[in-house]
């Protein structure tokens, strides 16, 4: 089974990289850009587990390693589930 995890800085936490990218996009003439948030995209290739367990396991991975929940949020996508 494949899963995707998106890790982004929490709303309210300053994202200096996102701000820099937003400024650059504006410089290029993309005036509609209001805000940019940068994050991490993690692809997981997982062995077979009952589907109801998979999400729980990935949540645990996020809490314990993949995200730092002081500053980051995460979102999990299961593929072919």
């Amino acid at each position: 089974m494949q899963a995707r995890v998106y890790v982004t800085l929490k709303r309210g936490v300053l994202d200096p990289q996102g701000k820099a990218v937003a400024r650059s996009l504006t410089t290029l003439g993309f005036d509609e850009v209001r805000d940019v948030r940068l994050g991490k995209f993690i692809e997981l290739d997982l062995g077979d587990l009952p589907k109801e367990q998979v999400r729980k396991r990935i949540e645990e991975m996020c809490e314990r390693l993949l995200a730092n929940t002081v500053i980051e949020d995460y979102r999990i996508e299961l593929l072919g589930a």
Partner: protein
Amino acid sequence: MRFGIVVFPGANCDHDAHHVVKHVLGQDARFIWHKDRDLSGIDCVILPGGFSYGDYLRCGAMARLSPVMEEVVAFAKRGGKVLGICNGFQVALEAGLLPGAMLRNRSLKFVCKDVHLKVENDRTPFTSAIPAGEILRLPIAHADGNYFLPDDELERLEGNGQVVFRYAEADGRITDAANPNGARNGIAGIVNEAGNVLGMMPHPERMAERILGGEDGRRIFESLIGGSKV
């Protein structure tokens, strides 16, 4: 006093710290490989600066899973002293020894320069020989030193006097211009509630001998040793 300096793959200030405590201050010191677990006889663990595990995922995120860290956390819980410098501070945050997290510097640049620090709390084992209000000059060298803590926790941290060092002007004024990375409240170093774990972004081990440009960093190690030779 016996110092243990943890060596993570990618650490690069481990020898500097070892040199200062052993050769400049004449203390007992040994390196502890990150896969070892033996902290016997150690009075103070130093988590040194560097780029443990290449800073992969987040600074310090991998290092805190090294076998030695389980022992360091238990050591700290028993009241053992832990000094985390730069990447070592980041490891201590990831390991939950200290509250908060590091964000990328607001300039997005790696900042390598001397800064001034105001000593905010001298009632810690790391600052007992430096009266509060004094200004130290120490080097920083980091890309992720933008200390973050949510509002309510920040208030508690400040209220508890856990902020030990704050970026300041040479005359001691706390200004935004003196803040090199955007850290909340200009925070450069903090202790845990019990006061036995200190994390700081500046490098005291790089400024402990006159020949290297200054001796302010030595005062932190002297505080620890208890000989206030200042």
